[in-house]
């Protein structure tokens, strides 16, 4: 598992060489992403020319599928690994730039609704995963990691919590594997369910942002439905990510109270350290657009730059999903994760449908 999810170690010393190491992998991400974009256009054009009724398969799905096929059929040369690992950078860059496509009023309205739903979602998810972990007799710290991962923001939250609650590497790998495997499944199930329910873009985007754990998969699941749904998914997921510090702090205090983790002396510094700073960039970009710093054409350009960044992210999502490695991680954590995720998906779907009736999303 570790080989499929670990980032290369940055070695001190030759930083130029380190920078050059990412080039092959980044080119691979760009090539796969662009191939997805070309496939979207050419397949749709071909189907149209033949008068076939064919579902519009977005570049997002093509990029993920190409990445999945490559990572699960070929042995990826080490040369590409450092660049592939940059997918998380492209994700964060895309999110910051996407802020330009949000009017501040929308951020405040949808962000406010998101925040309310996120608080409910986090509370229910933590309680549910803790209960399931106890029922299936998982190790307490593994249960904590799964609960944090499914309640807040997937892999980043697990990594953030790992140090704070002094969890084992093995537990972290289990939790990450479960979250990634379930994230990959949600890419296909969430849009299908939403189409079946005829959900509107905002409701679906909100659901994807609340229900899908890992940020990259949440963004991809939103974009798979529509561009507008992708935007809302980013907003809801970003709101969820912003809560990471509070949840990890609560768990750190809990485990420190049991004498099994370091005592947190400065809570404010702890919260700031855990806070995902790219959220501030997203808000700043939205504010700059709100103050008319950019013309309409420039806002479109910033939005398109965001799409290019996401293109590389989606290729990375496919490339780092190694189904063989995930299957080696054991069944019990996966069952707990899967059960929890299905229940959380149902709960968040109910929350979103309720919010839609009350506020008309």
């Amino acid at each position, binding site marked *: 598992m*570790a080989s499929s*999810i*670990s*980032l*290369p*170690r*940055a*070695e*001190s010393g030759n930083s130029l060489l380190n920078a050059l190491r990412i080039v092959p992998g980044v080119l691979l991400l760009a090539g796969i992403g662009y191939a997805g974009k070309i496939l979207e256009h050419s397949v749709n054009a071909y189907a149209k020319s033949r008068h076939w009724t064919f579902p519009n398969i977005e570049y997002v799905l093509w990029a993920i599928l190409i990445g999945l096929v490559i990572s699960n059929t070929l042995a990826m040369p080490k040369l590409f690994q450092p660049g592939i*690992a940059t997918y*998380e*950078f492209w994700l*964060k*860059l895309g*999110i*910051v*730039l996407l802020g*330009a496509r949000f009017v501040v009023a929308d951020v405040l309205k949808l962000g406010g609704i998101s925040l309310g739903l996120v608080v409910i979602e986090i509370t229910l998810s933590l309680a549910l995963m803790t209960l399931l972990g106890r029922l299936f007799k998982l190790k307490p710290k593994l249960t904590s990691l799964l609960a944090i991962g499914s309640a807040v923001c997937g*892999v*980043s*939250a697990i*990594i*953030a919590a*790992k*140090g*704070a609650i002094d969890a084992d590497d093995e537990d972290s790998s289990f939790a*990450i594997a479960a979250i990634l495997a379930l994230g990959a499944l949600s890419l296909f199930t969430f849009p299908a369910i939403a189409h079946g329910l005829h959900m509107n873009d905002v409701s679906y985007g909100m659901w994807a942002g609340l229900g899908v754990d890992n940020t990259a998969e949440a963004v991809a699941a939103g974009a798979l439905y529509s561009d507008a749904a992708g935007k809302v998914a980013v907003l809801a997921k970003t709101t969820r*990510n912003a809560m*990471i*510090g509070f949840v*990890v702090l609560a768990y750190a205090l809990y485990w420190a109270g049991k004498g099994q983790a370091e005592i947190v002396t400065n809570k404010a510094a702890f919260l700031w*350290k*855990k*806070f*995902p*700073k*790219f959220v*501030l*960039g997203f808000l700043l*970009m939205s504010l*700059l657009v709100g103050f008319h*710093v*950019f013309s309409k*054409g*420039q806002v*479109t*350009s*910033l939005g*398109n*730059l965001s*799409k*290019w960044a996401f293109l590389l992210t989606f290729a990375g999502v496919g490339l780092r999903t190694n189904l063989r490695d995930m299957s080696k991680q054991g069944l019990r954590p996966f069952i707990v994760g899967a059960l929890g995720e299905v229940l959380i998906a149902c709960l968040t779907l109910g929350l979103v449908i309720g919010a839609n009736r009350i506020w008309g999303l």
Partner: protein
Amino acid sequence: MSKDSASTPILPSKGRSFSLDAWALIVAMLLALAVKFDVFKTVPW
């Protein structure tokens, strides 16, 4: 970059001076400046 920061990439590496979040912010702001001052006339999609 702090070892257990929320922005720590999957398995943190020691010795990095900037977090991924900081890099994303810096690059985004540079791109925004480039767009603002017409270094890129238009970015197509």
